[in-house]
């Protein structure tokens, strides 16, 4: 299957990835080969077959709506790349 560099660029944008020219060309070829391989699924008639999203069939798992302690601000922020007080700091969103 043929995957163009333009398609690779579009998918990279959706995935929030920035690829070098070399990576774009490499991925175009490799994605083409892998997607070509998965085309074989089309050989199978799956009319009327239900899709499986989980191996174990289960209903919603409910729990009591009870109060319990959380990990706390300091622990939650301990890995923050940047912070101000009890907040994560990120680049400006709105100009």
């Amino acid at each position, binding site marked *: 299957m043929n995957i163009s560099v333009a398609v690779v660029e579009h998918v990279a944008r959706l995935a*929030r990835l920035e690829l070098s020219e070399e990576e774009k060309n490499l991925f175009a070829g490799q994605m083409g080969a892998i997607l070509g391989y998965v085309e074989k*699924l089309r050989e199978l008639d799956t009319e009327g077959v239900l899709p499986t999203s989980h191996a*174990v069939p289960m209903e919603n*798992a409910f*729990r009591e709506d009870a109060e319990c302690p959380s990990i706390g601000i300091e622990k939650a922020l*301990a890995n923050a*790349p940047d912070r101000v007080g009890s907040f994560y700091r990120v680049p400006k969103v709105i100009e």
Partner: protein
Amino acid sequence: MDILDQSIHELHQRLKSKEISSVETARAMLARIESVEPQIGSFITVTPEQALADAEAADRRIAAGQMDVLTGIPLALKDIFLTEGIRTTCGSRILDNFVPPYSATSWEKLKERGVVLLGKLNQDEFAMGSSNESSAYGTVRNPWDTDRIPGGSSGGSAAAVAARQATATLGTDTGGSIRQPASHCGCVGLKPTYGRVSRYGVIAYASSLDQVGPLTRDVTDSAIMLGALAGHDPKDSTSVNTPVPDYSAALTGTIKGLRIGLPREYFIEGLDPDVHKAMDAAIESYRRLGAEFVDISLPHTDYAVATYYLIATAEASSNLARYDGVRFGHRAEGAAGLLDMYTKSRSEGFGAEVKRRIMLGTYALSSGYYDAYYVKAQKVRTLIMQDFICAFEAVDVILTPVAPTPAFKIGEKVADPLQMYLSDIFTIPVNLAGTCAMSIPAGISASGLPIGLQLIGKPFGEETILRAAHAFEQATEWHTRKAVI
């Protein structure tokens, strides 16, 4: 060397009789790790201080007569398990400085039993790989032949057991990541049924397929570890609330009348002749033990790899969206705005295989392709599950090879991802079906490499595969073979 070779149950007897202490055991293991690490590279982080503190606590517990079979046993964890206060990288640069604020349930459970933590083990980045070559922390080398891969993604977990750097280890298995490295390194690897062990605090790759399991020296240890890990966890809504049996009690040594299925789709032409020979010999051993063989078919086997690489990559692209440089992990410097920060942080932090799978998954989920790829794969998954349901009407266990060949050479498949993906052809269907399976040593190739045998069980049929594996182990001596390192 003696302490290093012990299984959990052997070491337990010696700790119990006070012949050795847990601190002595931990020191011996740490010295071993230091001496062989330059050749193997199983560890990303070694935790000597933690190990000695754990060992001292274990010795106090033993002195107080409060020990259980895991107290004082030196273990190591794949670096995918969150360990509060101990760096957890998942094999990725993007988590290079990540110190988790809480621990995985499986680690909490082992800690309660008084185990000793030696460190965090090398793995393919985000568990994406079959050779451990995608780790950002270097390729692990197979202790049986250091020019070869140990398997993946739990390559460090298997190599550490084989190189006698830990008594047992934990891994995770999404498409074969416990069984395939166990096979390539000559140890016992168990992938429990989906939902048997909590996934809480295990960094997610493909959430409908990921499962936690042990890598050990023998089947008895595998049963001990599963007993410690299994059970419902309110923190994992997909963990199943069924009673945990006494897995050790299942190891009766007798399998007379056990019906073993041989799926014709797994004994194919491309199978390495040494692997084929080992399977034939194993079948003969089982026959002598009183098992009955049934020829079966799992007709959709040939579609499993394609199905897996759509479902797993789709789930991965969604799971890995959380790595955006905001709350933890790598953040790129000098980004022009928020979107640029996300993009740059991810592009700098992720390696090539992770990017490739995120790209494939994003493509499969994108507008216009969702039904043709993702939903189609979910439907074929249903057919693959039905194959197993039908087969298990006639048999108790299914016997197959774990991998089509013994461990391949480092670098051999790096340039061709599709060939790499096809090396998981015999392990992937089990994850799609959500059932349990294990790899046990069953031979040595002409070039001196271990060959594993896969036993697949019914959902929640771990007792049966453990019993079958144990009976084989009693009748053969493959599990006593050791890598010379």
